[in-house]
């Protein structure tokens, strides 16, 4: 019934040995020996064209729902002058990238960088292939190349009326030299890019055929369930394997690393059942007494600390605040959160004394490969990863801890493929969490209500300290200042404040941090945009008007804010019982804003009725998919704002599943209106930035509705009942 999901061992080994070719790694397409033998030569690294005109575009970045796959294929197809209806895709393997001198460049899929970082070279890849196809046709006809034109996969020579399809000349084109320099079309001439074409990866998601990591089946494969010490920093002392080895299906109980044990069984449910019954002794380590309270105390201390890293400085903020007519102060906080991908972490590995193959959903095929090389003990040339679509990523699958585990487990079963799947509970307890921070916002207003000075002190966790300490700059973590920077393309601060100090007292709890979709922009936007709202009210000025004055030199920041203000009907009376709120930020290279309309019942129940978003990502490759990212970003951001918090008790995370860590559901979903205002002069990302404006727009609307200012998330902890 699900034969397409099963790879024969022969094809598997053949596939690993296959050179560039057209080895198809999308497991949804049945892979046969015949296909491997009939491998079509590529025109160049990005484009394979079959004799029957089918086009396969190579996609290096991972698809996790964000639509990058379709967008990148559109960009290649645009320059290729392809017939879009003939276009499909495949993932090259990271091992192949290594062997070919990184011809596909970066595989990393995070930071909303999939398209904005690679649009230039993938378009050049498409253009180069088109030039080669035209050259091949011209050569065959004996006519000047300049007299030939390509459109919709057909090359035409007008003077003689001859035409030929790409498939007929692809083999000849493949033998030509790849042109070094190509000219790209201006966006104004796009016919495939810039259009809302349908996604290339929808069909198999409608009938159960899409094979995710959790669905991989290999001949003779066993399944593993895993448990790491629930206290971060703790270790595994021992386990009593004899208690479970007689249980149904159990093959082996193995120590994976110094803090982790796994049960290997015929079926995963058997492995999990045995693991739950396995007596395990942990050394809970130095953090066994840590709690949310002790962590909060550490962060509070940082709010007043002398030493802090500067992120943005102008004038003399502290002096200006000291001499201000009015001083406004507020302290905000943002909790740990788990990514909670719908598909828990999973990877499948086959280790033999000669080589190591593995299959997994990953946001970074190359770092997954590096992790497997290290864990396998084999040289790089003997390892490769076969990527599959992700059941959600959100930053979590940029880490390769589960890949390392899968290889370490498979290594203890040489010659037998083993699929590791985390339980939801393991996924919740062994996350890399949204960093926890607090911020003390202090501002001075002059007698006319003008903002004369702002000091924003962030206290809390640094992601880079946890995941990539070599990325620190003299101890300073630049990621902390997302959206708050004095300049640059990534996330400059939009407000012109004469005396400004934004600094960070780094306080790193023992809970491991990670890049969580939207990253530090999420809490920075809440801190800044809610406090701007507070300042506007303190000054007695309309929140939009208050911002306008400060954003004179940031027209793009202001542009999206004005767009949502117009969209929500700012300045016009709200429907009875409802109120409006606004927020803007710049991050991941794009300008975003949101305006929300909410009501709060007497019982304190919040309803978001409408939310309007505006995005200026510079260029839009697929408007419908950008709209999907905006809608999805509101769900991710509002789930976090309303419901999500990972608390700590006895050194471990308390929330283990969706019953205590809820996500927003359809009944809470507001109507979303997405306005795209691309200015055409840069390339920004869209997978993340809108998340950051979801919460502050709603929090500001809640204040407008109730007069209550919520400064600590999630909202489930806030009491908004009317007295």
């Amino acid at each position: 019934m699900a034969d397409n999901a099963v790879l024969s061992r022969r094809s598997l080994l053949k596939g690993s040995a296959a050179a560039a070719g057209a080895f198809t790694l999308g497991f949804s397409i049945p892979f046969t020996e015949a296909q491997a033998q009939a491998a079509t030569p590529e025109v160049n690294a990005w484009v394979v064209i079959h004799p029957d005109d089918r086009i396969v575009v190579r996609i290096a970045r991972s698809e996790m729902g964000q639509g990058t796959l379709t967008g990148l294929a559109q960009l290649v197809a645009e320059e290729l002058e392809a017939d879009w209806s003939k276009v499909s895709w495949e993932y090259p393997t990271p091992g192949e990238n290594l062997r070919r001198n990184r011809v596909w460049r970066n595989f990393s899929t995070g930071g909303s960088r999939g398209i904005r970082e690679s649009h230039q070279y993938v378009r050049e890849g498409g253009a180069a292939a088109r030039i080669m196809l035209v050259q091949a046709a011209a050569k065959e006809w004996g006519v000047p190349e300049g007299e030939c034109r390509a459109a919709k996969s057909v090359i035409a020579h007008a003077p003689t009326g001859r035409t030929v399809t790409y498939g007929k000349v692809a083999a000849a084109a493949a033998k030509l030299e790849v042109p070094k320099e190509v000219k790209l079309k201006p966006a104004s001439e796009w016919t495939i890019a810039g259009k809302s074409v349908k996604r290339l990866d929808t069909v198999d998601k409608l009938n159960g055929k899409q094979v995710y990591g959790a669905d991989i089946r290999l001949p003779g494969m066993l399944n593993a369930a895993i448990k790491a010490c629930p206290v971060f920093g703790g270790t595994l002392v021992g386990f009593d394997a004899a208690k479970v080895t007689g249980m149904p299906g159990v093959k082996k109980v193995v120590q994976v690393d110094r803090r982790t044990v796994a049960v290997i069984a015929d079926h995963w449910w058997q492995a999990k059942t045995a693991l739950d019954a396995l007596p395990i002794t942990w050394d809970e380590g130095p953090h066994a007494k840590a709690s949310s309270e002790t962590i909060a105390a550490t962060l509070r201390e940082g709010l007043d600390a002398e030493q802090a890293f500067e992120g943005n400085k102008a004038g003399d903020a502290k002096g200006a605040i000291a001499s201000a007519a009015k001083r406004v102060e507020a302290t905000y906080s943002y909790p740990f959160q788990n990514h909670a991908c719908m598909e828990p972490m999973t990877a499948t590995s086959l280790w033999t004394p000669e080589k190591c193959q593995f299959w997994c959903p990953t946001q970074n095929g190359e770092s997954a490969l590096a992790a497997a090389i290290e864990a396998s003990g084999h040289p790089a040339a003997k390892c490769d990863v076969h990527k599959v679509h992700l059941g959600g990523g959100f930053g979590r699958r940029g880490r390769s801890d589960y890949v390392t585990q899968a290889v370490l487990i498979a290594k203890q079963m040489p010659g037998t493929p083993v699929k590791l799947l985390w339980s939801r509970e393991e996924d919740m307890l062994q996350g890399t969490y949204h960093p926890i921070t607090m911020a003390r916002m202090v501002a001075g207003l002059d007698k006319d209500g003008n903002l004369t000075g702002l000091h924003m002190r962030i206290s809390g966790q640094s992601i880079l300290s946890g995941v990539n300490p070599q990325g620190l700059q003299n101890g300073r973590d630049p990621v902390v200042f997302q959206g708050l920077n004095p300049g640059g393309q990534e996330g400059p601060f939009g407000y012109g404040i004469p005396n400004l100090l934004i600094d960070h007292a780094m306080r790193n709890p023992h809970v491991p941090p990670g890049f969580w979709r939207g990253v530090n922009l999420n809490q920075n936007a809440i801190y800044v945009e809610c406090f701007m709202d507070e300042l506007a009210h303190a000054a007695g000025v309309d929140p939009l008007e208050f911002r306008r004055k400060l954003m004179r030199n940031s027209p793009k920041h202001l542009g999206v804010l004005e767009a949502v203000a117009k969209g929500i009907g700012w300045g016009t009376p709200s429907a009875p019982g409802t109120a409006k709120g606004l927020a803007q930020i710049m991050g991941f290279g794009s300008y975003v804003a949101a305006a929300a309309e909410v009501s709060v019942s007497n019982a304190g129940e919040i309803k978001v009725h409408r939310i309007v978003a505006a995005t200026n990502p510079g260029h839009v490759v697929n408007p419908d998919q950008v709209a999907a990212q905006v809608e999805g970003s509101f769900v991710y951001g509002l789930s976090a704002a309303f419901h999500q918090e990972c608390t700590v008790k006895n050194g471990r995370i308390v929330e283990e599943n969706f019953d205590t860590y809820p996500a927003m559901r359809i009944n809470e979903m507001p109507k979303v209106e997405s306005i795209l205002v691309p200015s055409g002069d840069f390339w920004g990302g869209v997978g993340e930035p809108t998340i950051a404006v979801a919460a502050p727009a709603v929090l500001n609307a809640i204040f407008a509705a109730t007069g209550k200012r919520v400064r600590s998330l999630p909202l489930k902890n806030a009491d908004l009942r009317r007295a």
Partner: protein
Amino acid sequence: MARLNVNGRVVDIDAHPDTPLLWALREQAGLTGTKYGCGIAQCGACTVHIDGEPVRSCSVTLGSVTPTQKIVTIEGLSPDISHPIQKAWLELDVPQCGYCQSGMIMAAAALLAKKPKPTDADIDEAMTNICRCGTYNRVRAGIKLAAGI
């Protein structure tokens, strides 16, 4: 050994009666379209139909299902993506990562079978599945498109 009727076929499953139906379907019957998300009937990724009712298969044991009960999984909803919900989902490009969508589609199909013209309140009540990518508004639009409303 348990005997099940899955997608109109008789399937014999060699697993402990306490095994959740979800895992019997995925591991023994090879029907991996039905997904594991939480194991506690919270997320709905494992939704299948039993005699037309949407059921969270992670929380139903193999032993509690009789051989005559008709189980339908995403693989059996239609032979060719021709169910109105599947057609609407394709038309609106509903899925993002798609992992939750088997369950979403099964829940939506069960809703339409009972209420061919569901109201927004009906949709809110029936569609309690979690989607982390945030496809909810397209799910709602897809149900309405399939229902012709």
